[in-house]
């Protein structure tokens, strides 16, 4: 019983992080219709930014995450303009492979710039945990989860209530009509891409206190992020949240019954089954 409860708690904590990391990917797809295979690399970039903010400026990664968000937002907006915008009307295969090329470039660019060292931060709370009854809640996970919840909430409010958020939703739902009401859809794409990769970088920064950063760290998350996003329904930020929590809990619970080795097998079987039954994800109809 305690074990099951513990697994669910762990699953929710990690799932919240999956959600914020994946919602950026979903945002990019929802608004631009581009499947970005390089997306997980921005998680790596975010971790590096937060790492250097810690190593040079002495900032806790939870604060460094804001720097990561801003820096990667700007970089993403620039990349959108130079690389993504020219292929928005190209066939999907071309988009997929442009982003695959970007993935190679970012991963190996990081290797060239920072070397292959494994870096991680030392925080005061790295081994602390709360004991609630029989349940252990580790502090770094809890902080990462809370940061994710807060930023997820801010993203939701931004998309729902702000003028730019409304314009972004309009662009996603009907680009032509968006132009007709005076929305600069190019600008919206740029913001969406910047925000999408920025959020993922932010997610990377908040998990840095318990993880390690190295150039290929993004590759651990590629398949995971797509699983989350597709489970929730491509393009839906709310879906990414549901998908993230679902993946976290599935992983934690499957470890109780099956060997850890089969964790991803269980996940993918659930993934394929969900898509077979509900081809547009768990949250049908909801949109960015």
């Amino acid at each position, binding site marked *: 019983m305690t*074990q099951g409860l*513990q*697994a669910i708690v*762990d699953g929710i904590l*990690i799932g919240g992080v999956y959600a914020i990391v994946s919602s950026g990917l979903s945002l990019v797809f929802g608004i631009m219709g581009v499947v970005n295979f390089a997306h997980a690399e921005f998680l790596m970039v975010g971790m590096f930014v937060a790492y250097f903010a810690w190593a040079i400026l002495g900032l806790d990664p939870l604060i460094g995450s804001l720097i990561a968000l801003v820096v990667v937002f700007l970089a993403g907006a620039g990349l959108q303009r130079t690389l993504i915008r020219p292929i928005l009307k190209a066939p999907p295969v071309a988009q997929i492979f442009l982003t695959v090329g970007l993935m190679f470039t970012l991963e*190996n660019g990081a*290797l060239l710039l920072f*070397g*292959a*060292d*494994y*870096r*991680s931060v*030392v925080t005061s709370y*790295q*081994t*602390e*945990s709360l004991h609630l009854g029989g349940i*252990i809640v*580790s*502090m*770094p*996970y809890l902080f990462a989860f809370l940061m994710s919840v807060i930023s997820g909430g801010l993203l939701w409010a931004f998309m729902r209530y702000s003028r730019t958020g409304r314009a972004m939703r309009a662009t996603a739902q009907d680009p032509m009509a968006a132009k007709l009401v005076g929305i600069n859809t190019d600008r919206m794409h740029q913001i969406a891409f910047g925000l999408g990769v920025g959020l993922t970088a932010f997610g990377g920064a908040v998990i840095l206190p*318990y*993880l*390690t950063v*190295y*150039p*290929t*760290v993004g*590759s*651990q*998350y590629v398949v*995971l992020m797509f699983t989350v996003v597709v489970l929730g329904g491509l393009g839906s930020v709310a879906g990414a949240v549901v998908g993230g929590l679902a993946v976290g809990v599935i*992983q*934690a619970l499957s*470890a*109780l019954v099956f*060997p*850890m*080795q089969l*964790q*991803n097998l269980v996940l993918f079987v659930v993934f394929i089954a969900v898509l077979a039954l509900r081809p547009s994800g768990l949250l049908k109809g909801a949109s960015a």
Partner: protein
Amino acid sequence: MSKSAEDQRSSSLVVSRRTILAGTGAALAMPFIARQGMAAAKDVNVGVVVPLSGANAQFGINSRNAIQLVADEINAAGGIKSLGGAKLNLIIADSTSTPTTAATVAQRMISQNSVVAVLGAFASSLTLAISEVTERRGIPLLTMSFSDVLTERGFKNVFQVVSKGSTLGRAQFDYSVALAKASGETIGKVAIMYEDTAYGTSQAEGLRQAAKAAGIAVVLDEAYPLGVTDATPLINKLRSSGAQLVFPVSYLNDSILIVRTMRQQGLDIPTIGGAAGYVIPDFRKALADLGDGVLSISPANYDQAPELTERFRKRFGYFMVHEAIEHAALTGVLASALENAKSTAPDALRAALLGATFDQGWASVMTGGSVRFDETGHNKNAYPVMVQWQKDELVTVYPPEAAKGKAQWSKRG
């Protein structure tokens, strides 16, 4: 330069002309490669195939650094004297993380650069793939990969300088039990956690065998996927297993995750790592004080030959990690063998590698102070050591003949 190598070179030039005539894309590569091979007429070309990109890049870089250091020293001291002072000319290439590519790269070095031997390729899967090429071309492959299979297939041209994975696993177990006993603790229940890679599984098999032989219960025996994003489920299982010792066999990312998660959950049973992630400077940097006292098995350690390994630290700024030590030893062995063979012909070189005990210069940097290959090509003088993080240094604490410091068993690593 030997006759056969000359032949190959001229044939490769013919080749390039024909392929250009044939108009294939591969022909574009030829001028580059042919020129590389031509650059150093009198040198002995040595192939270095290590991962320089992808997840294993760090280990590939460490290995390359060590090989470069040793080659530079040998060249500075006058090269291979029996070959008229020929210099070691390293042909370095990226194996990537794909065995096919690694094998192709090795093929290229043999065909285009006439390398006399190949060093590499850190990961066992890459080395196995390369060995299929070197064996068919009769070129010696010198490696520090752990895989048991490497020297158990009857291949004549594979030389493995380290203890095999299963030996490491057994030593990891036996040394730990001995250390526990020495501090008055009796071990009844242990846990094994390993990444589901060639390295993890073969070392876990060694641990399992040793536990069986010692009659000690393995209460958790769990493989997990390499590069997990969350170790919590694993540690939950460990906590409820009631093990007195844990043997995690993992690379750095997972090692750090495992140790941190254990500490967060207040679990401080002794942790005895399976080399890899537990014996590199980044481990200690990442965990700071948490890393202090952690034990690990290691196929070699820098405190065994400090006067040599300090040169590495001086040049590159970090202590000489085990894959660097082993690759340095291999380079030293290769140079000595070339010296003895007085020839770069593969047969002569193979004979020279098999015949002798290498205990001079960098060849002596391995545990036991020497290298001697048995008929399968395995270094029978190698044995693993138990090391412990004491402050920022890795100190050899077991077996007694190699120990440079005392094991702190009470300090719960």
